[in-house]
């Protein structure tokens, strides 16, 4: 990729982007910290429990967690410890935040990545099918599907799927990460986990399938009217090659953009879906931490999410360069 005038090469570009992200991440931490500190609700109440405790005891607990210090001092301390790679200690779980989050990260990534892959494949295939014959039955079907995907909330869809596939049909487990009664090993364990993933993955990906379908259709329709497509057809290329090799490649940029953009929404969606399905991931940890006002955990997760979003944006930009030879960094 190097050599073009004014370009520093993709590696150098990525490195620079990462460096520029540091002030952004610090900004995210500061804003989140302030928002959480200023929100009503006292973590000490959640820590102590629901009964009268002597005021001295309450103050002791407050001091123990450093919550008696002024907010700016707490912020500086927090930033200093994050700079040293320490995300702090969870009030409620009495464990380092890093351990708590990393323990669950794999499960959330599993759900999120399969969702992105599934949504992209199904969305692109449906979008292409719809764009090939605009206003046909296939197109109308895909459009209807997309409309439903846009309008159905994830948590509702999740409950509906449980009702249909677990309660009525008894085909799939109602929730959880794997079977609790049986201890499977080897392939049986993989299969068991796959069965547990189907419903949460469907609930989470439906919306993104819809978005990708709509976008692929619109983008492709535009491209397919371009002169060079006409030229390709005139050269006698098969319709299949025209569509998949020339059309889709040109239509891919907006699709890639939206996949990257969707990523941050999938994080939010996973909090809801993980709660509905009892999936022990980071999203649910975030949900629980809001209720216990477990600030360090909440901040740690928000930090992780913002770093992930920055990385995904960077990956999107890199993907541009790979798909479109005109893009140079």
């Amino acid at each position, binding site marked *: 990729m190097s050599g073009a005038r004014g370009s520093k090469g993709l590696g150098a570009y990525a490195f620079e982007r990462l460096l520029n992200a540091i002030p952004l991440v610090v900004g995210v931490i500061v804003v989140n910290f302030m928002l959480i500190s200023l929100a009503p*609700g006292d973590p000490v*109440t959640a820590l102590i429990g629901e009964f009268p405790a002597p005021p001295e005891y309450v103050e002791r607990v407050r001091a123990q967690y450093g919550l008696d210090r002024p907010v700016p001092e707490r912020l500086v301390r927090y930033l200093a410890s994050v700079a040293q790679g320490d995300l702090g200690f969870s009030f*409620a779980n009495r464990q380092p935040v890093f351990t708590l989050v990393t323990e669950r990260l794999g499960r959330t990534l599993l759900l999120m990545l399969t969702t992105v892959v599934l949504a992209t494949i199904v969305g692109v295939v449906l979008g292409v099918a719809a764009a090939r014959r605009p206003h046909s039955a296939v197109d109308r079907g895909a459009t209807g599907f997309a409309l439903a995907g846009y309008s159905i909330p994830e948590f509702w869809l999740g409950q509906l799927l*449980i009702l249909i596939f677990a309660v009525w049909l008894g085909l799939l487990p109602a929730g959880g990460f794997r079977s609790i009664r049986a201890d499977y090993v080897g392939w049986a364990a993989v299969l068991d986990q796959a069965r547990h993933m189907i419903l949460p993955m469907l609930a989470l990906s439906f919306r993104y399938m819809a978005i990708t379908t709509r976008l692929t259709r619109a983008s492709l329709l535009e491209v397919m009217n371009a002169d060079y497509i006409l030229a390709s057809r005139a050269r006698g290329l098969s319709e299949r090659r025209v569509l998949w090799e020339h059309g889709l490649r040109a239509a891919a940029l907006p699709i890639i953009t939206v996949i990257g953009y969707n990523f941050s929404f999938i994080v939010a969606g996973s909090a809801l879906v993980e709660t509905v399905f009892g999936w022990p991931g980071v999203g649910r940890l975030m949900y629980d931490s809001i209720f216990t006002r477990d600030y360090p955990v909440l901040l740690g997760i928000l930090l992780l999410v913002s770093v992930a979003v920055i990385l995904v944006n960077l990956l999107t930009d890199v993907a541009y360069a790979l798909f479109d030879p005109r893009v140079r960094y």
Partner: protein
Amino acid sequence: MSRSILLLACLAAFLTASALAQEAPTPGGTAIVILGSDPEHLNAGISTGYPVGAVGASLYSALVYLDAEGVPHGELAESWTVSDDDLVYTFALRPATFHDGTPVTSADVVHSMEEILGPNHGRFQRAFAEMASLEAPDPQTVVITLNRPYAPLISLLTVFDAPVLPKHVFEGTDPLTNEANQNPVGSGPFRFVEWVRGERVVLERFDDYFLDNALLDRLIYRVVPQDVARSVALEVGEADLLWGFYMPTADLERLEANPDLQVWKGLTIPSLYFVFANNDNPALADVRVRQALMFAIDREQIVEQAQGGLGEVAAGPFGLGFAFAYSEEADYRTLYPHDPERARELLADAGVSDLTLDFVYDSARGAFAAAAEIMRDNLRQVGITLNVQPVERSVMVERVYGRSYDLSMQSFTSGGDPAIGYHRIYLTAEPGTNFVNATGYSNPTVDTLLDAAAGLADRDARAAIYDEALAILANDVPTLVMFNELSTEAAAGNLRGMRVRLDQRDGLEYLWLAR
């Protein structure tokens, strides 16, 4: 002739029934119990959270347990004696061992109370504050000396309030960060196997338990955060037991109709629902206005519609749970029937018109939202505007105990003794302490009477004192007592041995699976 057939039929029915009742417990198998949220850690000595207590009840043991009727019995304590002045409690311990094989001694009991529970366990504070000294004169004896007589002490020494933790594991460490909080060592009927955070906690039978060994081989606590998913887990056979605390009440009817499940409803730990009235509001400081509210609010309707019938209209300041703290003359059901006309008279009498009240409640409690709508409608009929304000739980706590509200609905429990959970609602207190006197009501006579009742072990003598206090409270209505909640439980059809203790979470060593 027909009479003897009837007799025979009765006899046959009786025999079948008793045969069913005496079904012999079969040991073995695994039962899955549902938790609504992950335990924060597994040290019941530093937390009062419901899930920590649930797992803790099977992992740890304590000096006493409360049976299904709330009567205390010795657990680690084989017996105990109380001195004549009601100040010195001497406990004789049974021989017992921790799950790592170390014997449980009086030093463990004293260390747990002084070093772990005292500084870190919110609810133990009550008993701890009454203790003048804690001693271990020999390995099998614990002596607790009180500052003053305190009748509920024994009820506060259960596994939920005072679990015994191993001294050799915790001594010289910070109990909040000890590794054993993730990998617990107790002396209860089940020992720790595995904890997958957010998913499950697995325990297995401890074969050297000092009382009868548990019947199950394994006990698994499974985390199901979404309430609808909990009933579904039971219906599809992915779980065996669901406690009332985690029950989605809207699903109860469906669970009851399912022939593969068993559903139980009843009073266990008396849980009482109150509407607090802030006396800092001049209108609510007038006793006539508070009485008017009692006449205006249709508590029967709230029980039926908001609570789905799972309740009984409360009988007085301490509800229905404690016979010795109930007086027929002070029964709210006869004193304050639903009577809007009477409410309007009292309000006119007090010179109150165009009253608007802020009703603050925890938005996560669905039943409260329905109750709020009913109350708004009830109060509109007597000319009071109710400004309904659902807020998040921690915000509700800040507002109510900072006395920045007019009316607020909450529920309190008082396991084992009204002095544990209910006295605090009526005793004079400074504002700002959470979960004590939210109303600002202060009556020195009531203070004296309730303190005296808490100091007496003899329940008849206490009843006489309560009668006097109840008469005052019934007139003053410092807090509008709404209803006693009925508890529920749903279980797989083949599960047996539930509810042998006052708290549903306790006594799971008696669970077994019918084949």
